[in-house]
């Protein structure tokens, strides 16, 4: 439809989506974030992953124990002071990385699995499958994510598994659209058609030809998903809906709020957990952004807003090629 074409983006249906598009792909890519940003981001993520994995060995104290006075300021004994329960802030921070990153990765995985599957099926098979799946995705996209998450967490109990599932179920939609677009364009490529002509079965085609092409994009999207999931976990936990038995960065922020950190001037209980979350999310954004931009400059979805606003379709379905 000529209505949509001039604003063609890889994810072609979206009308209002074409917000950040310019007619000069090079601009956005070369001036936004470069390869160095991706490297730095990767380094940061790697550092935190390392800390999370080796947490039990890195913690100076047992985070669950009261090892010092309540709200002791940073000292040589407690590098980041103690929290409202007398636990060592640094140990808590290290222990928290496990859950925060863990939930982030797992939830992102769930989202990617669902979204990726939907996207691949939809893009590959097209036709009715595509229509049905995409309609469904579109509807899911409009529902405000955070209220849904909060209500689901309140309804279905507060344990880690549920939270992972809830986050995953709410965030798969933008992945689906992304992957679908990519799959569609891959599918049209010559060698896929050729392979099909030669009689290769669907399964083989998908796994051997389509997926490898889609994989880099999937990875980039996963990284962005991780950031989203970590963000979501802090939200849920802050409102008291998190798993009460786990320590996470979100939990530490919540403790600071409910544990009168402000009146005790205990900045060390407030600042560090938020800084950690910010740095990790920033790093993920940098990596994901750069990779997406690098992969396909015409892929206008490489835009920060896809994370938050879960771009939804504006125009009617563009003509399937």
């Amino acid at each position, binding site marked *: 439809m000529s209505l949509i074409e001039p604003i063609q983006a890889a994810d072609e249906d979206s009308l209002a989506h074409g917000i950040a598009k310019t007619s000069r792909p090079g601009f956005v890519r070369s001036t936004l974030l470069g390869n160095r940003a991706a490297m730095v981001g990767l380094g940061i993520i790697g550092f935190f992953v390392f800390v999370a994995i080796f947490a039990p060995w890195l913690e100076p104290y047992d985070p*669950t124990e*009261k090892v010092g006075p*309540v*709200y002791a300021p940073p000292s040589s004994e407690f590098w980041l002071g103690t929290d*409202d*329960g*007398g636990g060592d802030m640094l140990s808590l921070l290290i222990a928290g990385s496990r859950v925060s990153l863990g939930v982030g990765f797992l939830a992102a995985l769930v989202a990617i699995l669902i979204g990726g599957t939907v996207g691949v099926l939809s893009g590959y098979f097209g036709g009715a499958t595509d229509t049905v799946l995409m309609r469904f995705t579109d509807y899911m996209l409009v529902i405000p994510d955070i209220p849904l998450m909060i209500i689901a967490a309140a309804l279905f109990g*507060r344990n880690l598994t549920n939270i992972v599932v809830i986050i995953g179920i709410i965030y798969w939609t933008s992945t689906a659209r992304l992957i679908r677009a990519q799959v569609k364009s891959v599918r049209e490529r010559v060698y896929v058609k050729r392979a099909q002509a030669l009689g290769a079965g669907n399964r083989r085609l998908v796994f051997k030809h389509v997926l490898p092409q889609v994989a880099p994009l999937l990875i980039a999207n996963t990284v962005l998903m991780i950031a989203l999931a970590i963000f979501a976990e802090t939200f849920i936990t802050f409102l*008291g809906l998190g798993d*009460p*038995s786990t320590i996470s960065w979100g939990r530490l922020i919540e403790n600071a*709020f*409910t*544990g*009168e*950190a*402000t*009146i*005790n*001037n205990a900045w060390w209980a407030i600042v560090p957990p938020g800084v950690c979350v910010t740095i990790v999310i920033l790093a993920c954004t940098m990596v994901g952004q750069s990779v997406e931009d690098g992969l396909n400059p015409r892929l206008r979805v490489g835009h920060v807003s896809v994370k938050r606003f879960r771009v939804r379709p504006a125009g009617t379905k563009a003509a399937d090629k």
Partner: protein
Amino acid sequence: MRARRVVGVALTAIALMAVSGCTGGSSDGDTTGGDTSTAGASSSDVLRIGTTNYIDSLNPFNYIESQAYTAMMMIYPQLVQYNADFEFEGDWAESWTTSDDGKDWTFKLRPDTKWSDGEPMTAADAAWTINTTVKYKDDATAVAAAALANVKNAEATDDTTLVIHYSSAVGNVLPQLEQLFILPEHVWAPKAGANGKGLKTYKPELNLPVVSGGAYTITQYEKKGTTAFKPYPDFYGPPSHASGVALTFYTNADAVIADLTKGELDWADQVPFQAVNAVKKAENVVVNEWPGSETTNITWNSNPAKKKNRELLAPALKKALSMCVDRDQIIDVVFAGYATKVESIVGHISPLENPNLGPLEYNCAAANTALNKLGFKRGADGIRVVPATTGANAQGEHKMSYEILTPTSTDFNVDRSFDIVKDGFAKLGVKVTQKVGGDATATYAIQTGDCSGPVSEQYQGYDIAMWDWVGYLDPDFMLSVVTKGQWCSWSDTGANNPSYDKLYVKQGVTVDPEARKNVVYALQKIVYDNFYYTQLTNHVAIDATSKKWTDFESELGGYSKVYYTSPRQP
């Protein structure tokens, strides 16, 4: 240019929206406002109180929060109240006499009193309140009727004379009557409805101004905002020094303290324990401490007809588990040292506390041994297993793994308390997970189950909880909460012990103080031996007041109207 114009328009629009929202700001629609201005009053005469406990209701037949009790005390007349020495003085009553057999109490009330709507306040109102409360004590008025146990009826022999007839001589008349709020008959009687059910559901806070006769009238009520108390000019007692009292609810304790130190509040009625030391350093603030009446506990579902996890009904098991709870650590971490251990359900505040209970020693090794002896062996994962039972209420073999229910509305950090209990239980091979029940109402509903449904379905919804009680000087109230009569009213344990209940009635009618003391001690021992609760701590009450005001009577909160009327600016 265009951008600037747009911004300008937007800002104006926002301002307009802000002004339009200027009528009240409560977040759940429970807002009513009326005439609040006091002629000639400057706002600096207003006593501004900040609190994290809200007034949930102004209906004496239907409330949970202690802040509601405090508010009702300010607006409704009472027969008697406590003075600074915790002895009884008259509130509305000027004097009282007892008949020789102790069954009839005559109260002379102050004359020429009227309600805030101009109607005369007479002994007839008191009689009506008492009679109605007694009449529906099994259902609609149960919450208030506990204070009138053993009352047969009341009559107003003239406008200022009230006679209360007891069915037998009662030893604690005044402490009980101190909890009674006198209501205006002409307002409440029409609301009663069938079986008095209307009395329980009537919401005076939504029909402002509340027709009251106490030291104040309430002219604005916002459940989660600010409630305004305006001094009632025709109050029979010592008038309020402040030209008005504003009680503001905060969702966050930090904010209360912050506003107090900034000078925007005059009184923080509760200082969170983690903040005490910081507040003590503030220049313009005085920190007051006094013995508190609140005890924290582990609540054990003691419903004998409980279907699941019946092993938790056994006192020996509960005792063993309780022996590995580090109460000293709770005192240190949760209360910053401002608490002591307690064994009795009535708490240290009561002069009739039984000093001979326990004490429960902290000894995990002995606890482990006890559990082994009771036959709960550890499984491969270290968690003890309950063997299968036979007969009535037979249960299959299952692990000792339970949920502990906690409310969100406690004024102490219940999460940290739970952590310490969890650690203790873990050492014994018992696993517990925390289940957050929501606010007080929601949590209590989980404990009782459907109170309008069959009794067999009640008190089945939880095994263990952690909560608190605010006790009174007279132990009657606290001793009543484990009676069958308080099911679906004040009982959270679902305890049902007929011999205890009989003894409870007996203490109510024992007049001789020494004899009553023995019965009261015995009752506390029964509760202790059965471990309906594991009492944990009794903490200090701490508040903070601005140096701009003086004559605070912090200890009389919940005991006298003086609590609000006394503070003044020197």
